[in-house]
């Protein structure tokens, strides 16, 4: 989340090969100090907006981006070629950036959400939210957390995720909260680029070889059952953000357009059920999220006093 260079405390620095590097940010490519990503931004809650509900909403959108970015980053060095590897890493980076801003916004709106760490811990709020919550406290949709499949699965999921998120962000550019509105306005441009990338590859795979077509069809059977969750209303989203149910038509139109050009039909699969009506937005996740978080959080949790 923040710039990832660990530094140790200065005790015994004569034995530390890195001692000479510490304390001077100029030695690092991107600095080492913590800085609020919303430094100087007015985070006053606008009239008529419930601060705790706004924070919950920012957690949802932030967790979608964070968890999905973690999945995408697992592709690094595994893509079919270098260009695609770089593209996927770039997309993950955009999403981490969105997550960082949204989690910082959530923490500013409702500090009670932020996990507490030992006195004097320098870990910033957005990192506490990212690294020190358990799976049940995450509010991402389950599509974000699914284990990676092959390249066709990557493309099918990216098409759906970016189409859905773009539809949300386009509506949030007029949000009452100026911070959310600004994050959305920036994100729209990034997400439009992600959607085009996924859409082009989707068409390429569908119209490529028999094998690429077969793989894409298989991928759609694993991704499509998770679409209904994306457009299911929750009270928080409807009240303080965008009611997901209002997005269904637009998402359908975009996906139909891509599928038509690709010459492929959507699978007729039932939506993945929740548990007694609870899904990702309620903290009910698949087992895959716990494993993803274990890997993502293990180092941060081992060093609650660490500087990164």
């Amino acid at each position, binding site marked *: 989340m923040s710039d990832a260079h660990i530094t140790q405390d200065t005790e015994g620095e004569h034995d530390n090969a890195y001692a000479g590097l510490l304390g001077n940010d100029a030695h690092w490519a991107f600095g080492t100090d913590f800085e609020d990503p919303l430094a*100087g931004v007015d985070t006053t809650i606008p009239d008529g907006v419930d601060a705790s509900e706004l924070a919950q909403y920012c957690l949802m959108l932030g967790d979608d981006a964070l968890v999905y970015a973690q999945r995408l980053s697992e592709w690094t060095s595994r893509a079919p070629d270098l260009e695609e590897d770089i593209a996927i890493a770039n997309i993950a*980076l955009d999403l981490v950036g969105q997550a960082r801003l949204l989690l910082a916004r959530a923490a500013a709106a409702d500090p009670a959400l932020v996990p507490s760490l030992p006195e004097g811990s320098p870990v910033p709020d957005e990192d506490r939210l990212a690294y020190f919550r358990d799976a049940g406290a995450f509010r991402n949709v389950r599509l974000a957390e699914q284990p990676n499949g092959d390249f066709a699965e990557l493309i099918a999921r990216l098409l759906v995720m970016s189409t859905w998120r773009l539809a949300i962000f386009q509506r949030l550019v007029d949000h009452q909260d100026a911070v959310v509105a600004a994050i959305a306005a*920036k994100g729209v441009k990034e997400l439009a680029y992600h959607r*085009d990338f996924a859409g*082009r590859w989707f068409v390429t795979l569908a119209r490529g070889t028999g094998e690429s077509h077969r793989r894409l069809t298989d991928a759609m059977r694993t991704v499509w059952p998770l679409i209904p969750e994306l457009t299911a209303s929750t009270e928080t989203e409807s009240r303080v953000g965008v009611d997901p149910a209002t997005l269904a038509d637009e998402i359908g139109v975009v996906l139909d357009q891509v599928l038509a050009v690709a010459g492929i039909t959507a699978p007729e699969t039932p939506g993945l059920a929740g548990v007694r009506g609870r899904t990702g937005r309620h903290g009910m996740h698949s087992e895959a999220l716990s494993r993803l978080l274990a890997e993502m959080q293990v180092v941060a949790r081992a060093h609650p006093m660490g500087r990164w």
Partner: protein
Amino acid sequence: MMTTLETTAVQRARAIASEVTDPELPMLTLADLGVLRDVAVEDDGTIVVAITPTYSGCPAMATMRDDLVHRLTGAGFESVRVRVQLSPPWTTDWITDDGRKALADNGISPPGVAPRGPVMLSLTPTRRAIQCPQCGSGDTEVTSEFGSTACKALYRCRACGDPFDHIKEH
């Protein structure tokens, strides 16, 4: 109303801040890149510099901030603060003419006009009329819509064979 002294301080601070270069595109100043949004002075003499991120996840923001603080404190300003300005969002249209020339002179193809209005789905590769910054040929092709940093796409010149970076319209 600012006093003459404050006006002079702001002008001097702005001149210094304007010369700080981008960590990833060192041929560009932050002013030429369009990320330097404002330089102001507070009542207590603190210089407040506003910068805006190019992309949400741009990792160069921390370095820009540190460079600004180092340069301004090095020039004698005792108190310097850098604030993030999220709105309006950065666009490549803010890259100055000098900046575009500096990019081209350094082998990087400058961006065209950024798209505006409704976001359209585009299922065919983006068509850009781009000249190779090495040999000037217009016979170029995109090799990847994503490049070594968030703001670039990768191109290749069919005439001279050289690969080059293009700053994406954003």
